[in-house]
């Protein structure tokens, strides 16, 4: 590069003249003039006359007018290209400068990148969860036109609900048919029901997974097109048991059928029933229920033949059984409100004229409430799921908490940049006095923040990835009917989010420091010299103090919130389950899903139970029709000897059909009477064991033993055919956090309809050996039966409270991180202030202030920030506590012990962060400080 050329960056830096657009044309004209003159002169020298030479010069040049236009254009193009090159070079130059200056300050760069990486990484991970649970619409066309159709309480008769919705949202199939006949505002209305499916191709192993029964308009309402073959339609929804067809998911087709188009038309065994595979659902669609991945769709009218737990096709016609979930698609231009009014108007006469007669014994109040039931039509764009309801608040809280962590991290970066800017005041002042524009300098300083943001953003993806893996490890594995399938990953949307947050925060929090560093009072800065901060620094001081105060406030709020969750989690861990879960291994067998007849299924369960008790190191075996601590729950109403029952009396109990020696094996203490034995078999007198809550509810007291009872719908009308032979201590049933309900235990060997069971095996020593031995023991009885849910009972108990464990652990981690970041911020500001006030402190000490007084000076500054921040933080903690109240177990959102403890922690951390700068201040030697300049 020659000495003539001015580097583009410098031309911009010093605001040298830039050529105007029309200047390029004028220059081109000047070149043409000179060329013609020189050419003419040459020709004249060769002997032509002046006029001839002029004409010849123009001829050789080309048609002057036209050529001139072309040259103007090419000169113009040249200018534009040069300007662009200039700009690119100046950007690259800025980036190089930023990188170089950051390399010179590796400590600063590392801390800043770490702050961004931790803050943004946590935030991006929380966003991924938040988006998956609360934002992502179903992968179907125009999902925003989908609506969920439910009814208001009370539902009379029986209800069966699952992860698709609450027990108030289910409809009976006949009522669904009635509504769909009168659905003017809805283009289509569909019902669906998840079932446990064992799916096997003609030759190949069975997969236990989720299936969905669907009515004729299911796929039409969703607007889906098949990936192969056809989807289910109205022609598959005509007569019960007449539609032996199925559609499988794209994922199942790919992984189990080799993505073979010829698989369509072949036979598929679903729960032992042969169906024709007619098509494959589009890729990426796995049902409308969040957390569940359906692999097979079967016509609703096959529910009686395919689902062994339905109890036959009667449920399809029964208005008293409520078990399907409904959704629809709004007609173009129709509103949800119109659909609601229309469907409610359609339902009311049916309730009054048809269904009311089914419930003769109800009270006048219940009757009125029943007749006033309405249809609700709500947003269905994200499908139907109970998971969303239970995880909404935790997901929101975690997202909010990590947002605060980002803010705290950013405040640190802003403070660091501010300190850096002050250190470079002299350099910047010199550049500005040499004519560098402020805009230009601000951009260059922002370039530094941008580089930090880009590097920090990239690092944040690693943090996010790790956190997502941690979050996923809390969520129970998907298993048949239990567990949750979620896609927690760095989706493009999450990458975009992380990028936007890191660059956004880098720039927003770099702006004030950059503006401040280039403020106008240059002369003051130059005169003051290095290490001295002129008057304009007051704004910066206020800004820094404000930032640290806010950090303290936010970290206290987060600590308070985390403290609540941790204490709640401890309460959950301290729950007395009423059983001895240690050394017990659980698993489940569902022979009914393999197409076994009830009698064969029942026999298989009995043989497995016997086989298990012969295993070495096994102390006892217990079977139960309902698995414990899995959110499963069965029950019904009972009539108990001596207990008066009116129309509105609550006579509901939960039930479990269990094997011989159940209570001894589970470690549930027998208070009176006896455990079940092998003698309690079919044909023997019907017996039951109840718990204390049952005895209390029905006022049995001491006369519980020997009392008789009858079960609605199972015992003959008005007959009390079951006798209580034992009373046991209360033990948890559906979950750890749900208090033990009134329990009615009966022997499963007396009820041959039991066709699936959970088994509990108590090991004498460590459960690991038993865990390994179980699959072999089951295979000795039946080689084809899949063993489900095989894990220690203690693990099942932990997984049943996974949400508490996840929220508690993560919020504690984030709060600790926030507090650490705030401490770093506080330390940085105090250390900087001390360095700044060296001379002042030196003077004070020269005038006789002792070390204690100087330390007090620094600590007072810290105290002011902690007091203000603490007050704000306590208010924030109370607010967060109120918000989180419903997630807490065994404590309120304003738990004084937690609030006090977090305040003490913040105060101690602040003191620790302030101590070093305070001590350093007190060690300043007056003579050196004064000599320094």
């Amino acid at each position, binding site marked *: 590069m*020659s000495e*003539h050329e001015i580097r583009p960056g410098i031309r911009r830096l010093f605001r040298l003249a830039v050529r105007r657009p029309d200047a390029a044309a004028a220059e081109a004209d*000047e070149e043409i003039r*000179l060329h013609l003159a020189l050419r003419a002169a040459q020709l004249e020298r060769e002997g032509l006359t002046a006029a001839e030479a002029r004409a010849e010069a123009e001829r050789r040049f*080309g048609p002057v007018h036209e050529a001139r236009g072309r040259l103007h254009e*090419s000169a113009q193009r040249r200018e534009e290209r040069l300007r662009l090159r200039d700009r690119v070079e100046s950007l690259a130059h800025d980036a190089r400068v930023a990188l170089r200056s950051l390399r010179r300050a590796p400590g600063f760069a590392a801390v800043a990148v770490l702050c961004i990486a931790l803050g943004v990484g946590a935030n991006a991970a929380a966003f991924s969860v938040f988006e998956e649970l609360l934002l992502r619409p179903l992968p179907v066309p125009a999902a925003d036109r989908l609506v969920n159709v439910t009814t208001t309480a009370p539902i009379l008769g029986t209800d069966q609900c699952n992860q698709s919705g609450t027990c108030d949202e289910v409809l009976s199939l006949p009522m669904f048919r009635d509504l769909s006949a009168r659905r003017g505002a809805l283009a289509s209305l569909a019902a669906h029901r998840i079932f446990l499916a064992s799916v096997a191709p003609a030759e190949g192993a069975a997969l236990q997974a989720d299936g969905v029964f669907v009515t004729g308009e299911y796929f039409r309402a969703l607007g889906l097109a098949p990936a192969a073959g056809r989807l289910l339609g109205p022609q598959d929804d005509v007569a019960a048991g007449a539609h032996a067809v199925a559609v499988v998911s794209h994922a199942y087709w790919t992984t189990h059928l080799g993505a073979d188009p010829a698989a369509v038309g072949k036979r598929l065994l679903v729960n032992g029933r042969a169906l024709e595979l007619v098509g494959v659902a589009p890729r990426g669609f796995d049902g409308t229920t969040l957390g569940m991945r359906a692999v097979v769709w079967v016509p609703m009218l096959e529910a009686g033949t395919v689902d062994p737990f339905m109890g036959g096709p009667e449920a399809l016609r029964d208005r008293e059984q409520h078990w399907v979930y409904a959704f629809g698609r709004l007609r173009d231009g129709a509103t949800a409100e119109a659909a609601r009014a229309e469907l409610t108007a359609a339902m009311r006469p049916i309730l009054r004229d048809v269904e009311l007669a089914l419930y003769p014994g109800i009270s006048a109040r219940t009757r009125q409430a029943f007749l006033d039931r309405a249809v609700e039509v709500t947003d269905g764009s994200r499908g139907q799921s109970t998971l969303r309801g239970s995880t909404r608040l935790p997901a929101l809280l975690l997202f909010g908490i990590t947002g605060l962590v980002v803010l705290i991290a950013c405040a640190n970066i802003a403070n660091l940049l501010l300190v850096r800017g002050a250190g470079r005041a002299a350099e910047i002042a010199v550049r500005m006095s040499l004519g560098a524009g402020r805009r230009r300098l601000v951009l260059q300083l922002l370039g530094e923040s941008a580089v930090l943001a880009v590097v920090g953003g990239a690092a944040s993806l690693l943090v996010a990835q790790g956190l997502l893996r941690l979050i996923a490890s809390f969520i129970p594995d998907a298993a048949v009917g239990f567990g949750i399938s979620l896609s927690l990953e760095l989706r493009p949307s999450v990458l975009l989010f992380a990028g936007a947050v890191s660059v956004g925060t880098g720039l927003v929090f770099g702006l004030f420091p950059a503006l401040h560093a280039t403020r106008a009072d240059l002369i003051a800065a130059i005169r003051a010299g290095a290490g001295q901060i002129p008057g304009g620094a007051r704004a910066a001081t206020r800004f820094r103090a404000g930032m640290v105060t806010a950090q303290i406030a936010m970290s206290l709020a987060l600590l308070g919130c985390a403290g609540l969750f941790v204490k709640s989690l401890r309460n959950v861990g301290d729950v007395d389950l009423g059983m001895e879960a240690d050394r017990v291994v659980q698993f489940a067998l569902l022979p009914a899903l393999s197409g076994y007849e009830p009698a064969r299924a029942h026999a298989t369960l009995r043989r497995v139970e016997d086989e298990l008790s012969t295993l070495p190191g096994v102390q006892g075996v217990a079977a139960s029709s309902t698995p414990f601590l899995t959110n499963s729950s069965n029950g019904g109403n009972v009539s108990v000897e001596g207990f008066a029952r009116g129309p509105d009396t609550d006579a509901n109990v939960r039930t479990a059909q269990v094997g011989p020696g159940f209570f001894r094996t589970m470690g549930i203490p027998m208070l009176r009477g006896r455990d079940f034995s092998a003698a309690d078999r079919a044909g023997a007198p019907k017996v039951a064991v109840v718990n204390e809550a049952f005895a209390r509810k029905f006022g049995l007291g001491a006369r519980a033993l020997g009392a008789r009872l009858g079960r609605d719908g199972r015992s003959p009308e008005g007959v009390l055919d079951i006798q209580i032979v034992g009373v046991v201590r209360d033990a948890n049933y559906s979950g750890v956090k749900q208090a033990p309900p009134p329990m009615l235990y009966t022997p499963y060997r007396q009820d041959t309809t039991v066709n699936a069971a959970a088994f509990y095996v108590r090991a004498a020593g460590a459960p690991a050996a038993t865990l390994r031995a179980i699959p072999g023991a089951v295979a000795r009885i039946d080689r084809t039966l899949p063993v489900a849910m095989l894990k220690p009972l203690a693990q099942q108990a932990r997984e049943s409270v996974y949400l508490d464990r996840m929220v508690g652990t993560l919020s504690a981690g984030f709060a600790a991180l926030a507090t650490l970041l705030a401490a770093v911020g506080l330390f940085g500001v105090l250390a900087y202030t001390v360095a700044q006030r060296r001379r002042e402190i030196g003077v004070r000490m020269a005038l006789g202030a002792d070390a204690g007084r100087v330390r007090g000076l620094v600590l007072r500054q810290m105290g002011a920030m902690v007091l203000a921040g603490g007050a704000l933080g306590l208010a924030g903690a109370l607010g967060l506590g109120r918000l989180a109240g419903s997630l807490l177990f065994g404590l309120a959102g304003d738990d004084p012990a937690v609030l006090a403890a977090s305040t003490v922690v913040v105060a101690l951390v602040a003191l620790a962060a302030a101590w070093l700068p305070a001590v350093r201040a007190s060690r300043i030697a007056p003579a050196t400080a004064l000599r320094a300049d």
Partner: protein
Amino acid sequence: MKGTLDVLVLKALTWTPMHGFEITQWLEGRSDGTLGVQDSALYQALHRLEARGLAAADWGVTANNQRARYYRVTDAGRAHLAAGTDQWVRYAATVTDILTAAAGPA
């Protein structure tokens, strides 16, 4: 061949920075005036070279004290010239081979 003029101009500028007319004369002196392009095409080539960063220009003064735009070759221009020369030599050799080979079926 396309880009020939650009390469020739760059070659001229490797001797010394020149203004437009000097380049014309340099080229005419070495080709006995047989280049056969209009003078204006040269200026377009110069603007193109400048835009691509192969040449740079500054205003200067001629021996007769006239203001003129002096062009010089940049580092990128030198590299471009080397590459262009190679290409030309290979091209010319190929054409020569074909034209001087004994006639006959391929």
